[in-house]
């Protein structure tokens, strides 16, 4: 039990000896352990993503069983933030100031990470491989301690726009986007590719998350004469869009759909699986339900991990292969640090990943960073909805460099 007097005493001691604060070693790195901090929505509306946090706990347990890294065991501390930004701030301060973690890893959510990005950059705490697709985590100039991992929404939009120009050069694009950071990244990505032609080629219409339906927007886009549609919205609205596009008889369009909203259970089935046939989206991870990976060595490695460390985990949940891939990347960075676990060295190695291939990425897709590239994954493969499943086609495509 810590008494107030003890606290006062410690405080006084710290004040008396300022030298302690700038000791040589990194906070959270001792002779025997590396402390890694994380926040996850284990409760609340986004709690489905909690499986990512559970996977990380299991992954680091596996690493410790294998002897740890750099002679140390990993102490993975993960807290629930309920996907609520104020809670994230509270938990991250607790991780940094009380638990004294060496780094933050894979904190989940765009609004939640937005709430802490200033704080961690001021404190110069590595904020690594955040679990969100927003493009802004690649901004190495303003937030040099923060980096994303998955292909950003903007990269994804660039890939769709490039594919559209290749298959239908004189296309007219209707763009339906959710009016927030997520949706606007798609507008930016399409603009990257089309440049000055954007205004003559694209009709962009937004919707708010509070809108009950997007019927009016679909009618507007159809009326604009667009023959290609890009839908950049969250699952409920994506399902509504697929159904409405079908119901108004808008069949000529190529329909690109953000890979945020391709869940069979929450989008394709509610919309009516037959209504979405031909929809194109993209992927960078091996889908655990895709029979094509049954004999894949990478996926076998992942399945062995699941069997041993998360035996009750849902093998169809795409969050697990995602978590496995990003945790492997984290491990790769710690390996590259080569015993020097200072925060500066960690960031140097974060910006020095050369074509690393996690087990769960689609073959041909690599993790690569440099001091001027904080977008670790920039490649994806397209896939098409057949009425029952997503079928990959074509080679691996890359976003444009901006």
């Amino acid at each position, binding site marked *: 039990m810590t008494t107030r007097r003890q606290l006062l005493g410690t405080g006084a001691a710290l004040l008396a000896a300022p030298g302690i604060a700038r000791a040589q070693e990194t906070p959270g790195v001792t002779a025997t352990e590396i402390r890694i901090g994380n926040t996850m929505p284990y409760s*609340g*509306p*986004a*709690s*489905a993503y909690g499986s990512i946090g559970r996977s990380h706990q299991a992954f680091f347990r596996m690493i410790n069983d294998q002897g740890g890294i750099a002679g140390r065991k990993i102490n993975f501390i993960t807290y629930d933030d309920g996907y609520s930004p104020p809670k994230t701030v509270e938990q991250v301060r607790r991780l940094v100031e009380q638990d004294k973690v060496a780094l933050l890893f894979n904190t989940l959510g765009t609004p939640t990470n937005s709430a802490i990005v200033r704080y961690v950059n001021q404190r110069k705490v590595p904020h690594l491989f955040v679990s969100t697709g927003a493009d802004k985590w690649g901004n190495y100039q303003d937030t040099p301690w923060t980096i994303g991992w998955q292909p950003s929404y903007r990269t994804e939009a660039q890939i769709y726009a490039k594919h559209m120009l290749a298959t239908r050069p004189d296309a007219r694009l209707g763009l339906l986007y959710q*009016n927030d950071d997520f949706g606007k990244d798609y507008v930016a990505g399409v603009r990257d590719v089309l440049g000055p032609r954007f205004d003559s080629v694209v009709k962009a*219409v*937004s*919707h*708010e*998350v*509070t*809108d*009950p*339906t997007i*019927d*009016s*927007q679909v*009618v*507007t886009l159809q*009326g604009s004469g667009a023959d290609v549609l890009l839908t950049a919205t969250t*699952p*409920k609205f994506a*399902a*509504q869009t697929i159904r409405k596009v079908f*119901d*108004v*008889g808008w069949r000529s369009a190529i329909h690109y759909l953000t890979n945020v909203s391709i869940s069979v*259970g*929450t*989008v394709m*089935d*509610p919309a009516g699986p037959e209504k979405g046939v031909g929809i194109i989206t993209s992927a960078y991870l091996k889908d655990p339900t895709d029979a094509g990976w049954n004999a894949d060595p990478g996926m076998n490695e992942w399945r062995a991990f699941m069997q041993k460390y998360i035996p009750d985990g849902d093998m169809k949940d795409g969050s697990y292969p995602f978590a496995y891939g990003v945790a492997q990347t984290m491990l790769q960075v710690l390996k590259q640090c080569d015993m020097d676990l200072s925060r500066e060295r960690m960031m140097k190695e974060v910006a020095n990943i050369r074509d690393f291939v996690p087990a769960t990425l689609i073959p041909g897709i690599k993790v690569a960073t440099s001091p001027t590239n904080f977008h670790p994954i920039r490649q994806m493969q397209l896939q098409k909805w057949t009425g029952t499943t997503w079928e990959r086609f074509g080679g691996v495509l890359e976003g444009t460099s901006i």
Partner: protein
Amino acid sequence: MNGLAHQIVAGIATGGIYAAVALAIVMIYQATHHVNFAQGEMATLSTFIAWSMINAGMPYWVAFFATVAVSFAIGVAIERLLMRPVQNAPELTHVGVFIGLLLIIGNATGWIFGYTTKSFPSPFHSDKPLAGGLISAHELGSTVVTLAVLLLVWAFFRFTRLGLAMRAAAYNPRSARLVGIRVGWMLALGWGLAAAIGAVAGMMVAPIVFLDPTMMLGILLYAFAGALLGGIDNPMGAVIGGFVVGVLENLAGAYVVGTELKLTVALAIIIGVLVVRPSGLFGRVVYSRV
């Protein structure tokens, strides 16, 4: 011109949703002279109850009427257990209880049923697209259901002694009590009926917007605008108001203010009506002597 017609038809279809929810809001206002902020959440919970029954293998219409009955009971229970102890408390206390209800019911729904989007079946089907695919069989069917509920509500208040007693209890509780009306039970009945109408609205809305715990959040605001526009004490007005808001919202979004300000249109309607004509288009102006 074709686009304009399409926007209007799509607006009427969406307006049908607002009309159904607006009707539930008017119902509770008629009975208690309060606007229940938790109306949307209660309707969503009812819809989830129906969803569970249908998933358990019950035929649609059995589940439909069972849900209406269960919702009625929940409404009565809420009045008896939660509203009754604070019935003489100031307005602000009621608002507090309503907001508390909204949070409790909303989060409980998410906790029990999860936050993922679910599809909800529709009893109305059509083989060929109606009006060029702009209106679905379900949207047409649910509009008919809304109008049928409207007719029932109107007839109930207009022709039955119970309806008259409920109106009396809401307008003048003291006099009503003196002529032998059991005011407390009339209020409970009002809550029950409002919850039942909300359940119908929820079950009609869910096939269109898909079912999740936040389904009613956006809808409720538009429904408020519709109810106010038509007159908060007039069921017919509320339904017309709901349709008008649906069409206005689409036209303004597509041609005037842009999609970013669609929600603002609803808020502007609310404020405009309150400033210019607080009783709404069809509402009765009530004078009270002070």
